[in-house]
């Protein structure tokens, strides 16, 4: 573990060189310890893959005190038990109608579309980071057989709820935006709701599973399908 300066009011703690569910659990525990020790002096915390950025309030505390408290928080002995983190299940309507890149992934991987869907929904995914856009969670890792590089030309329009793959990562687009990930289905739930408390059902360190649902259930759960869901260009 390594504590480095990030800026005049922030430290970054590096936990390892490679991401894993154990490192995620360790970061999650550290967040709680940091909040207990530094509480109101913390402005923001950003956990991501193998690191934790700690931004503190310069009006209240200084570098020396925060560093001392951080070391104490990191060295607090805690039992790490991977798998004990919160788990959330997200329903997904996988189909060519709701996932325009399913066919492409199937062709690339020499699998049937059904097999691609099966492999995606069998996985148990770790939430490694949240960023890029409000509520965008990076989940890992998908089965190597369905890992697919980003589109060479990103779509101008990816709908809210689109379930996507990029390399060995997967994600659900929290809002309509441009995007270059491969789309394989739609989730009818709102993953980022500014008026809900909490605004997101998942946080970094949690685990996520996907459950395949049919079109009727998708529509029943509030999902919507329209003609121009993926912009004019269709696939790629």
């Amino acid at each position, binding site marked *: 573990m390594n504590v480095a300066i990030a800026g005049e009011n922030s430290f970054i703690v590096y936990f390892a060189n490679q*991401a894993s569910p154990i490192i995620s659990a360790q970061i999650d525990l550290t967040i709680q310890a940091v909040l207990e020790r530094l509480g109101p002096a913390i402005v923001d915390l950003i956990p991501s893959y193998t690191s934790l950025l700690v931004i503190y309030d310069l009006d209240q505390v200084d570098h020396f005190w925060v560093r001392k408290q951080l070391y104490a928080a990191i060295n607090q002995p805690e039992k790490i038990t991977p798998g004990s983190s919160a788990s959330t299940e997200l329903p997904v309507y996988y189909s060519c109608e709701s996932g325009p890149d399913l066919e492409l992934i199937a062709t690339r991987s020499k699998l049937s579309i059904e097999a691609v869907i099966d492999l995606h929904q069998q996985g148990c995914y770790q939430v490694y980071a949240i960023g890029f856009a409000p509520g965008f969670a*990076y989940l890992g890792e998908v089965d190597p057989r369905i890992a697919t590089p980003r589109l060479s030309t990103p779509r101008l329009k990816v709908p809210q709820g689109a379930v996507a793959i990029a390399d060995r990562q997967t994600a659900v687009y929290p809002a309509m935006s441009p995007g270059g990930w491969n789309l394989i289905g739609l989730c009818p739930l709102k993953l980022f709701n500014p008026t809900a408390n909490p605004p997101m059902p998942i946080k970094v360190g949690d685990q996520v599973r996907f459950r395949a649902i049919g079109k009727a259930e998708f529509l029943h759960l509030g999902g919507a399908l329209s003609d121009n869901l993926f912009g004019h260009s269709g696939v790629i």
Partner: protein
Amino acid sequence: MSLLVEQPGILSLIQDYGRFGYHNLGLTTGGPLDVHAFKWANRLVHNQLRASAIEISIGGLNLKAQGDIYIAVTGANMPLTIDGRECDLWTSHRVHSGQCIALGYASEGCRSYLAVARGLLIEPSFGSTATVMRERIGGLHGTKLAQGDVLPCADTHNLERLTLPLNNRPVYPSHARLRMVPGYQYSAFTQLKKSLFFSSKYQLTDRSDRMGMRLQGPNIASSIRQMLSEGICQGAIQVPADGQPIVLLNDRQTIGGYPKLGSVMAIDCACLAQLRPGDWVRFKAVSIHESHNINSVAALAFTRQHPLPVK
């Protein structure tokens, strides 16, 4: 009572001090690019220093008062008129119902702040009214001011008018020395690249915005080819593979995977934000101890500068 937007100008945004505590959801800070000028605008109309105000970039904002109010404009040298009468910047002014407030285009600097006594009364989202256009959050509708927008504020009578003496007002030259605290992947840059970085001028490109200022100058790429995304703080100096540094500002993404040299002090990010494309900067490394001293001295100077009553 309210202010009616008659002409929005190039980029006018509602900003309070910024959105804090939501980086874990991917929400960035937003808030005023030049905190010093922002705080003075509020102070001159006796507001709480973090009250909601308008950040005007370049200029061109025209408002109509729908009620009797007091305003103050600080920051870039943008000519201010009230019903055609020229008015001093860094000074509070009374505006009567029906009068027009017009800001011309900046001759020096780039960002101005217009504060209204008792603040703009905007509903906060995630604890803040700061507008972040990329996230479609904050302000009135998550975007810049548009013609016809109505900004609610409070009627104010008998406010003591204040002005900041000329010698206390900042100047906005076309260059800046940016003090930075080395950090993040600093050691992954060779000594040669670091020497080059600290001894060279970097020019602001036109691909600069509230997310980050893209600079152009000697190539200082690091040896890192791939890294995992990590949290980004205010002022972080990101160096992508092309070796051209980007200083990340208020609307930055919260995580990113490019190597970073460290971070520019907030006090100097404010100076950077007043520059325009073509202007240039130099960097100077300061230790974390020096940065604390610089901030303490600046905080003391701010409290010890006293505005004078307008006679």
